[in-house]
């Protein structure tokens, strides 16, 4: 059992004082940014990248993973009490959980979300520990053609799943891919799309784009809508201890949600949104009192929250074993690996086992910390929601500017930040998802590298992608993800 010994070594790192310290910092920060509207884990990790350069990568990633998981927990608190989903995967929680809160059962909703997240997070981390070594084994046999096809699959599923429509997702992805092309081509040394600006030869920094889209775009959007509508925070009422009946109604949805969420996250299938919707529908069908759904049913919070968290853990499977990010936060984490000169993928398990297994072990620890932080302290976190919006967004932009300027000490970066922010604002207004752009920006250069490697091996023969069975299968699935929904719509129209 190679995995077991690796995991045990990992725990010796995660449970050492330093490991515990950075995990705690991570989950604390993660919960904080998860609770605060307008700022999430992807943005936070992006802003921390320049600051963590000097930190040992193992501890940096333990902290990042804590932020990632913490953001999930914190996000559900905001969704339940404020009815503003921090991300698309907590839409369901925002609806059903908020209805529970309005009926005076906010405390139970928070409790079932937190415990469900813990159960799902732990089960999914266990699945990650068991599954990762097998995928690593498989991935070692992949050549450039397989990797390229795998990336194409990730591109299409991410674009197809997120956003208001498929061409909108693709537009976002292509925009990210285009930005990723700016700078010197590493293989030939040719400058591409640098517009004659020497500062652009190094390319556009991921941090600038991520912060521009997430922080500046979001702030501009919220500012333009601020006059309309007031946020209504529902105070927590009732005991945080769930009743016996609520436990009885929660535990099965937790398990079903976990089982549903993990595979969706682990496949490069575009994250946590679909499994939360599926879980909601399944729970509604299985419930003894389906009429409560839509009025605040605890199963409708327990299931989707578990699915959401399990999917979040699942996303780490392709990220760590294949170097394939399928969510915005995972994309930023990939950028963090690159910052340290590391390339996630099968070789990472061989080259830096203490980092990978330390990271995985810290997920178990972080989950437990989060349960403790969130259950009794929920009331404390809720106070953060009372921060006046002008101060909150002023602070977000202050730190956004700080993080971006310190990358290269360049005010041109600040200008690019603003321009990207404007693009992000337009994207928000027209329902273009932001995550595909970030994923395209980071994964694009890697995809180009694999494409050119594959074509170099085949001596320019394009058919290499369809003559190798695994690569062909991956491309077929990608094509199905693109064309399937269109055919489906046509068929429905025909009937």
């Amino acid at each position, binding site marked *: 059992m190679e995995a077991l010994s690796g995991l045990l070594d990992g725990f010796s790192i995660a449970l050492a004082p330093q490991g515990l310290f950075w995990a705690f910092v991570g989950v604390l920060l993660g919960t904080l940014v998860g609770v605060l509207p307008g700022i999430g884990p992807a943005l936070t990790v992006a802003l921390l990248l320049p600051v963590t350069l000097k930190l040992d990568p193992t501890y940096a990633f333990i902290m990042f993973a804590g932020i990632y998981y913490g953001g999930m927990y914190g996000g559900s608190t905001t969704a339940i009490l404020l009815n503003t989903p921090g991300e698309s995967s907590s839409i369901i929680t925002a609806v059903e959980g908020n209805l529970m809160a309005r009926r005076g059962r906010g405390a139970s909703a928070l409790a079932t979300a937190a415990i469900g997240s813990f159960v799902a997070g732990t089960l999914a981390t266990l699945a990650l520990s068991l599954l990762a070594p097998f995928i690593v084994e498989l991935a070692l046999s992949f050549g450039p053609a397989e990797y390229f096809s795998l990336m194409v699959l990730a591109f299409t599923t991410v674009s197809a799943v997120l956003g208001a429509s498929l061409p909108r997702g693709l537009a976002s992805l292509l925009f990210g891919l285009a930005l990723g092309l700016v700078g010197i081509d590493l293989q*030939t040394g040719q400058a591409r799309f640098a517009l004659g600006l020497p500062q652009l030869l190094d390319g556009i920094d991921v941090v600038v784009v991520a912060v521009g889209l997430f922080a500046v775009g979001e702030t501009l959007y919220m*500012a333009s809508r601020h006059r309309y509508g007031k946020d209504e925070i529902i105070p927590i009422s009732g005991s945080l201890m769930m009743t016996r009946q609520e436990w009885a109604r929660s535990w099965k949805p937790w398990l079903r949600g976990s089982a549903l969420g993990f595979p969706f996250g682990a496949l490069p299938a575009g994250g946590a949104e679909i499994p939360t919707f599926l879980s909601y529908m399944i729970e509604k069908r299985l419930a003894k009192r389906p009429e409560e759904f839509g009025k605040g049913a605890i199963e409708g919070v327990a299931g989707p929250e578990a699915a959401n968290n399990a999917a979040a853990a699942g996303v780490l499977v392709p990220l760590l074993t294949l170097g394939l990010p399928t969510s915005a936060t995972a994309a930023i984490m990939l950028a963090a690996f690159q910052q340290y000169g590391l390339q996630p993928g099968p070789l990472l398990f061989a080259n830096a086992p203490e980092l990978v297994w330390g990271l995985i072990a810290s997920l178990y620890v972080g989950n437990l910390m989060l349960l403790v932080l969130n259950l009794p302290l929920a009331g404390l976190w809720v106070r953060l929601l009372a921060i006046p919006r002008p101060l909150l*967004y002023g602070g977000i932009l202050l730190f956004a500017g700080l993080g971006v300027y310190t990358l290269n000490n360049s005010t041109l970066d600040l200008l690019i930040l603003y321009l990207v922010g404007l693009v992000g604002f337009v994207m928000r207004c*027209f329902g273009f998802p932001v995550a595909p752009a970030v994923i395209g920006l980071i994964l694009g250069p890697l995809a180009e590298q694999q494409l050119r490697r594959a*074509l170099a091996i085949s001596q320019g023969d394009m058919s290499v992608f369809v003559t190798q069975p695994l690569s062909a299968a991956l491309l077929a699935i990608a094509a199905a993800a693109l064309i399937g929904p269109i055919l489906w719509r046509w068929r429905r129209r025909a009937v």
Partner: protein
Amino acid sequence: MSERAEGGAPGSALGSFAVAAALAVLGLFMLWETWSIPVSISYARIGPRVFPALVAAGLVINALWLAIEAWRSSHPAGADEPPIYWPALAWVSAGLLAEAALLERIGFVLSATLLFVLTARGFASTALLRDGMIGLVLALLAWLGFTYGLGLRLPGGPLDALI
């Protein structure tokens, strides 16, 4: 980000056309630029042009798709969306552009405070003094943390004279 439920895509039809046009222009510009990337003979087949050309072509084709979608969309212009409140946008933009223009002249602390105040103004805050004080304290803490905690040098402006 909160995605909307099934149904019509958000945004007015005219705006959707504009976005599609902008993407098409970007794609065409990229095709033009790709053409100007020098290629040596040895890399001719798999050189630095292939991937950019694919992305550029993708942008143009996808822009057409977006335009068709906008044309077909029965979604009435801005039906469920409140109109954009432009003054707020202008305040926040002013803050960001001011920081980009002034950071290396008046230092991080003052330019970041200005950004904070202007952003708060964009969110309809009228407590100018309170915003200024909070922004100043935040910026000062960040500056101190970076300068002494991390050893990263940020332009101090007037503070440079003090240390």
